[in-house]
């Protein structure tokens, strides 16, 4: 599993908490907002929208149901239309799709900032994110 996939999986699992698969849309919405805030601070709103758009475009190739998801237009909002799109997909497909989308986004951060700084900045949004996260530590 790639670093960005491990991190995306951890973030979604953390946001889901005790909720089951039915809580995925809301968990993804919260994760998207946090990532949006982080990116707005790093690259401005316009830059954040550009990064989300790129991640979204790549994810839609594998998961067409993400066509209903759009980049956010309000300040600090990463994505819009997540809940509706995820509810319309089978639970396992929804989970895979949103995970790919977040992994694409985190992958871009890893390219620009490197692993240490990306983990550190994600850790500012998710306090419990472990400094080291191997394949056997993916459970939040």
């Amino acid at each position: 599993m790639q670093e960005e996939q491990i991190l995306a999986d951890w973030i979604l699992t953390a946001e889901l908490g005790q909720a089951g698969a039915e809580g995925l849309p809301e968990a993804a919405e919260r994760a998207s907002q946090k990532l949006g805030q982080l990116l707005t601070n790093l690259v401005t709103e316009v830059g954040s929208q550009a990064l989300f758009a790129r991640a979204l475009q790549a994810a839609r190739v594998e998961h067409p149901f993400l066509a209903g998801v759009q980049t956010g237009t309000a300040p600090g909002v990463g994505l819009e239309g997540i809940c509706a799109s995820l509810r319309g997909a089978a639970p396992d497909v929804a989970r895979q799709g949103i995970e790919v989308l977040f992994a694409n986004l985190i992958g871009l951060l890893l390219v620009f900032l490197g692993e240490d700084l990306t983990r550190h900045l994600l850790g500012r949004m998710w306090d419990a994110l472990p400094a080291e996260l191997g394949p056997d530590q993916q459970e939040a």
Partner: protein
Amino acid sequence: MTARNQGPREVISRLETGVPGLDEAIGGGLPEYSFNIIAGGAGAGKTTLAQQTTFALSSPERPALYFTVMGEPALKMLRYQQQFTFFDTAKVGTSIRFIDLSREVLEGDLDALLGRIVGQVEEVKPGLVVVDSFRTVIRAADAGDGQLSLAAFVQRLTLHLTAWQATTFLVGEYSQGELQDNPVFTVADGILWLSQSMERNSMVRKLQVVKMRGQAPVPGLHTMRISDDGIQVFPRIIRRPPGDLGPPPDRRLSMGEATLDAMTGGGIPAWNSVLVVGPSGSGKTALASQYIEEGLKLGEPGVVAVFEERPREYLKRARAFGLDLEETIRTGLLEIIYLRPLDLSVDEALLEIEAAVRRVGAQRLVIDSLSGFELALAPTFRQDFRESLYRMVGALTGSGVTVLMTAEVGTSFSSLQFSPDLVSFLTDDIILQRYVEVESRLQKVMTVVKMRGSEHSSELRTYEITDSGLVVGEALTGYTGIITGVARHELPGPG
């Protein structure tokens, strides 16, 4: 009459910027709560200076707010700045918070911009605030139609940040012509001006402390360098006030050759500067090495600054003169430093030399040679070589070191040249080596030309470089025309 205003005065705390050499250049550190400008052209190192200082000064107790404006988003700034060793990932988002102000600036609304900055300051209560780039704010203000004028914005910003006890840096691209009548420069407590210039393929970076309220910065242009460790400033050499260390001791330093010591009146006076001049191959380096080795024998640590060859080659050459210096390097009595970049400044060289002098507690220093030193300087500094050398020699001897420098001069058979580039007047003492023809044989001769404040021999003596070093021989007597290079027997007088 009673003196007024003699009560206890407020002592301003000075912060260590974390930029080597900068605190000295600005007069002892950055005044706490001061409002400062870092200005200069593109690529001058403004953001690096601001970031290096921010990483050095920020802590959980003294958090920093770093406002980015339009120019460089935080993502790119973090990407590039993390290459420097001063970058501390753990401080990002904790001790240092990056806030983007692009939206407010794009709208050209200074009221909204001030409100955002003040809001963040009230929330975070930072000890340090950076706005990078403030120039962008000014451009937006010029273009916008807000009610708040730039002068009023700057004044309010200053007052807010001072009220919140924040030490502030505004970073911006400015030209020298903009210093006049600009409200930003008027209210600033400190202005650091960065520049870079190219001359004959050599690039030199400089920093000037244009203003620093409440303290005395070192005047002039200081050279600076950007490396993996960030910025290092080399404060301009200022000659130490005479008497800093008291008067020089009444002591002479042996050159390791008894006859030569006798010629100099008993050795080189302590804390003097000596210039050994001669043509190529005359034995200047041999004499310099002997001077160092004699000191080491007497327990006087030394430093050799070489410019023309690497330390390994220097040691090999010393071995050829019968001198084994390697053991003394191992025991910390001797340090050989190699200074050979082609964009060196005199101040940078001095800093390296002074650091080595401090490390070994050197009493003797050799600079071998001035010709190589001059070549190692960036072209822009060669123009001021004599003036810089004067300051450097003064600084070194003023710190209690006896300095021996070598310099190459051509062999002239019509005149006597004491040094290249007329640097001989800068030194206290001069020893001249040269070749002369005596009875169809080329011989090496030396003489003491000058020994400031001291009697010395005026003899011209032959010498040889042997396996055990430089050995001074007989005085050349009974000859005339020696300094022309062709010695002739004196004709017997009449009668």
